[in-house]
């Protein structure tokens, strides 16, 4: 579908709803990772509501596009997305991080729609490459996406995987970096800077695009370019804001991995409005 025909306003409303549900889910659990979930909302919407071929009533459909959530702590945005797509009842979000329930703290294959257990950083891109290589061996056309955090790509294993993606000409792999600029203990640029990040991916052999990661139109255009480039892996550097949408969370390292209390939730929900 051409980007002009997409109802971007409807998707923006959905982003507001997802942010609300992410915050409610984490508050109910009493723990979780709001910052990196809120920064990745539009990425998930662009993938699940626009780009990816998937069937919520047949999560193991063999021709589905795959998503590896390499930064496994953004389970809240992953689960909210999957619930809204119909993979499991939304009621289940109330069981997030609770004993005996399916929604594990970090993304888990018990949850319909999740492809791979993660939680230790720097694993996802190698796995995505393996899936993509398998697809080529089997002559399957599906695509594999991998969402990574910016702090995560300080892990050396990410760059081992990046070299492999280019060496094996995996043009069916799309790496998406949620570049929200903040990691657990502070700004990425102060802890160990990534710049020039797009150049790093380019020099590793990736066809690379930089977008505002909260701009659905930009994300969709970049995702549509993936798949048109042959013999090279694709990378999207999505410039985002950690804790996006909630003034007291934005850019704040302390909201990387803690739950709002009831009052903070109320305050946060008042602020949510569609992105202009």
């Amino acid at each position, binding site marked *: 579908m051409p980007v002009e025909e997409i109802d971007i306003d409807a998707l923006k409303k959905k982003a507001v709803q997802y942010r609300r549900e992410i915050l409610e889910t984490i508050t109910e659990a009493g723990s979780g990772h709001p910052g990196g979930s809120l920064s990745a909302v539009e990425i998930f919407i662009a993938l699940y509501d626009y780009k990816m071929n998937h069937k919520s009533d047949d999560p193991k459909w063999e021709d589905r596009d795959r998503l590896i959530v390499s930064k496994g702590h953004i389970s809240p945005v992953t689960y909210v997305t999957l619930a809204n797509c119909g993979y499991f009842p939304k009621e289940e979000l109330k069981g997030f991080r609770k004993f005996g329930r399916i929604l594990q703290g970090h993304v888990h*294959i018990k949850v319909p729609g999740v*492809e*791979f*257990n*993660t*939680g*230790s950083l*720097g*694993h*996802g*891109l*190698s*796995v*995505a*490459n*393996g*899936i*993509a*290589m*398998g*697809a080529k*061996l*089997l002559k399957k056309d599906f695509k594999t996406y991998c969402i990574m955090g910016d702090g995560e790509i300080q892990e*050396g*294993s990410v760059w*081992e*995987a990046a*070299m*492999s993606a280019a*060496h*094996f000409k995996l043009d069916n792999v799309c790496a998406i970096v949620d570049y929200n600029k903040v990691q657990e203990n502070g700004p990425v640029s102060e802890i160990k800077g990534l710049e020039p990040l797009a150049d790093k991916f380019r020099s590793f052999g990736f066809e690379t695009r930089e977008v505002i990661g909260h701009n659905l139109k930009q994300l969709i255009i970049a995702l549509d370019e993936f798949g048109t480039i042959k013999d090279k892996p694709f990378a999207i550097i999505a410039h985002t804001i950690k804790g996006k949408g909630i003034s007291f969370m934005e850019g704040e390292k302390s909201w990387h991995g803690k739950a709002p209390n009831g009052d903070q939730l109320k305050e946060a929900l008042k602020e949510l409005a569609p992105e202009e």
Partner: protein
Amino acid sequence: MSEKIPTRDGFGKELVELGRENDKIVVVSADLEDATRAEYFKKEFPDRFFSVGIAEQDMVGMAAGLSMQGFVVFINSFAAFLTNRAYDMLRLDLCYNDCNVKVICSHGGVTVGQDGASAQCLEDFAIMRALPNMKVVCPCDDFEARKATRAFAREIGPMYMSTSRAPLPVLTKADDKFIIGKANVLREGKDVTIIACGVMVAEAMAAAERLAKDDIEAKVVNMHTIKPIDEEMIIACAKETGSIVTAEEHQITAGLGSAVAEVLVKNCPVPVEMIGVNDSFGESGSPEELLSKFNLKDVNIVEAAKKVIERAAGV
């Protein structure tokens, strides 16, 4: 005894056979396929062989991804490098996700020889058997390496095999049964049981010969599977012989001896002596020199057997 063959060769040869039978078998490698013998497969099936270069972590992750597409994936390297460096990937990608990936590592133990301590893995049993879902096998000869490789291809789930660089005598027969988790008795005896794996099985057999000269009848058990360990066999041996010596080319900490002791303390606590490397790194030298230096020879097993028999008798 006939020709001596490293168990890595058995793995390499059998993998080629398996590759002919099953086109879903693929190999991911990290630039040591010449040493592990996975290169036999590479030569015959270049389209099903992928080298990620010297990148063990990437090798494990890529193998996990391939296995999710229905491939039976064999990865390989030196034990020291793959199990230690890529442990997080083995734990999370393979074991936590229960991926059908077979981890084949050559160069276990001090018999690696002249390369020295950095390449001599002495802790792989310990760290591999601590992982849920992982099975751990260490074959003692060429036949067993071939059968283990075949079993790995057949059974589903993550599995680890340690193979030798050192040539080993052939102690089993072509038609001996090999079942993962079921140990084999190589020699009967009533006075003491020697439970060994890999390189140390030959030393255990030589020790039993020596003990026989002193009228001590040692039973020798080839415990090719360290996990799941054959509890039934261990308990039966304890009841039958009343004392046990374990022998492994591995740290005493958390290896075969520990696995055997875990079974015994719960079920039939008899005296145990453990032959293994005692909290130290290896060094350069010939396999024979190093087995002697680290007290891993038949004579050391003999000494341990006599001691454990005395302990059992309350002397």
